[in-house]
């Protein structure tokens, strides 16, 4: 990721292509040999989860950071993507004859899964985005939260059994509160290896970067700053607001899909993975890194993933376990929310704009934050020369 953007500000077309190919090559090598170097599968899982969370954060960043809307239901889109990919991967796996999920076969399974996840999440993003035309601020936030909770509860409360309407029967196969474990509970085939996870995190990260600095991203940021002024220069608020929701939902769908079929991940998707806490984690990632900053969202995603793991590690230490025997209700995972809340409060006091603000790492120009990216300095120079 880092290398990619350093290459971008270099401005040379070929070097960019080389960097892109290099990153994908490294991802490919990771896919084939990572297990030989990193023997602990939980560590491998952690790295890949971090990459997925980078996708979650950078997609939420499109709504919360660039468009200036406030969504607190991002987990709903992630979950939609997760369930879609889980179901399709399981069925495709069955059709292809079962067995071990091989790398070669992942080139069929993963694209199909992720396309379906992205499409479905995008459709729901459109539907959730529509109220954003009339609602703003907290009211819109409630709509997004409502969507995420409805999604979670519809799946969690589906009754097992073969009676009722076709929709109820279909939902009941998703396992309800226990989660979906593939066909006949054999587990979801985990096709997405590091090549897919790291590769997509990189590619979609570049896409997010391009969105921010394109005319489209600029119009979106203009809308965030002042809606009347934006309309007065000809930006259509309706189109931009809804499209930003769709883009964010598509990103979340891909991230959720990847997480569900991630190699070294858990072969089960559970409605509780997509509760409010998950949405809150996503918001924390964006705010921590700096709303509106693509690299900030990436940093936030990595940081939060690793800190969750770190808290689990601390939880497992003998000292904490000994304490737990004394105080049964002690649960560091629950404390995590308190720790995050404190971190956020502190951050808001000390650095309200987040770690990076709207700035980017690897952005050459220092003048303004959230500048106009790779092409702007040249245009600026022309203007000054004139």
């Amino acid at each position, binding site marked *: 990721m880092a290398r990619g953007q350093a290459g971008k500000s270099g401005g040379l077309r070929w070097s960019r292509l080389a960097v892109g190919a290099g990153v994908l090559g490294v991802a490919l090598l990771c896919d084939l040999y990572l297990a030989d170097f990193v023997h602990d599968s939980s560590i491998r899982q952690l790295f890949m989860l971090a990459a997925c969370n980078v996708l979650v954060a950078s997609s939420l960043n499109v709504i919360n950071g660039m468009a200036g809307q406030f969504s607190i239901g991002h987990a709903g889109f992630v979950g939609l993507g997760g369930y879609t990919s889980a179901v399709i991967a399981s069925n495709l796996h069955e059709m292809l004859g079962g067995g071990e999920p091989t790398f070669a076969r992942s080139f069929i399974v993963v694209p199909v899964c992720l396309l379906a996840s992205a499409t479905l999440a995008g459709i729901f993003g459109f539907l959730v985005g529509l109220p954003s035309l009339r609602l703003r601020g907290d009211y819109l936030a409630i709509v997004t939260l409502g969507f995420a909770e409805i999604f979670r509860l519809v799946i969690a409360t589906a009754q097992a059994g073969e009676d009722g309407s076709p929709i109820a029967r279909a939902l009941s196969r998703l396992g309800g509160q226990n989660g979906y474990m593939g066909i006949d509970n054999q587990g979801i085939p985990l096709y997405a290896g590091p090549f897919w996870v790291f590769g997509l995190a990189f590619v979609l990260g570049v896409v997010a970067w391009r969105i921010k600095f394109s005319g489209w991203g600029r119009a979106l940021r203009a809308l965030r*700053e*002042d809606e*009347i002024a*934006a309309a*007065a220069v*000809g930006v259509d608020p309706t189109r931009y607001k809804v499209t930003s929701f769709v883009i964010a939902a598509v990103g979340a769908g891909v991230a959720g899909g990847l997480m569900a079929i991630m190699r070294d991940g858990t072969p089960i998707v559970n409605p509780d993975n997509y509760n409010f806490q998950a949405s809150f984690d996503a918001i924390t990632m964006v705010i921590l890194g700096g709303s509106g900053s693509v690299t900030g969202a990436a940093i936030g995603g990595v940081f939060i993933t690793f800190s969750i793991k770190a808290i689990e590690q601390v939880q497992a230490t003998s000292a904490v376990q000994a304490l737990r025997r004394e105080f049964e209700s002690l649960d560091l995972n629950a404390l995590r929310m308190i720790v995050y809340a404190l971190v956020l409060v502190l951050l808001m006091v000390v650095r309200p704009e987040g770690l990076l603000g709207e700035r980017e790492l690897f952005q050459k120009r220092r003048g303004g934050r*959230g500048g106009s990216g790779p092409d702007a300095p040249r245009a600026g120079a022309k*203007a000054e020369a*004139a």
Partner: protein
Amino acid sequence: MRVAHPTRASLALADGAPLLELTDVKVSYGGIKALKGVDLRVFPGEIVAMIGANGAGKTTTLKSIMGLVPLAGGAVKLAGRPLAQDTTEQRVAEGISLAPEGRAIFPNLTVLENLELGAYLHRDAKAMKETLEDVTELFPRLGERMKQEGGTLSGGEQQMLAIGRALMARPRLLLLDEPSLGIAPKLVQQIFRAIAEIARSGVTILLVEQNTRIALSTSQRAYVLRTGEIALEGDAKELASNPEIQAAYLGG
């Protein structure tokens, strides 16, 4: 200033026909009638001022021209064509630009980005570059601050940016909402000199102002708006010497 638009069709305007015409325009906010039937005409090449006290409906008039508020009655016509069906974006494309009140620029975007957004609807690179040159010539201060964030500019510079941004669309009709609001007198002079120059290059201007003195000295004709109605209209110089105007708006 180069003002001809690269792709927009030129208007067939009969001699003596107004570029902009408002007939009996009514706007209500909830139950409150902000405009009770405004008639107003702006002819090509003119600077027309609209003066009046707070709450008289000046900004609402401009918003009704841009399509930013729904009309409760009446019609807005550009070169004889009713705009009722047109969205705000379409009106911008047809050549109406607004520099909104209170220097509504994009504070977290750079000056250059603000200006580029002004040319949002026509992505003709050459025309954009030319207009950028013209705007920096008109307001050299903006040229010095291209990479600075809009929010870090002084009040006067922000107003220049708002006008510059409106010009980037190469409008036929430029709507200016209180360009003197909260700006140091010296900069106000500069801005109004620039407005006169914009008009000389062929852009028609409708100017809303509370600063009656400078508005009447810059414009050719003026309307006085009072509680949602046109109270007076006429030649700017005549209005400036009108005892009623002097008492009400020019401080004696």
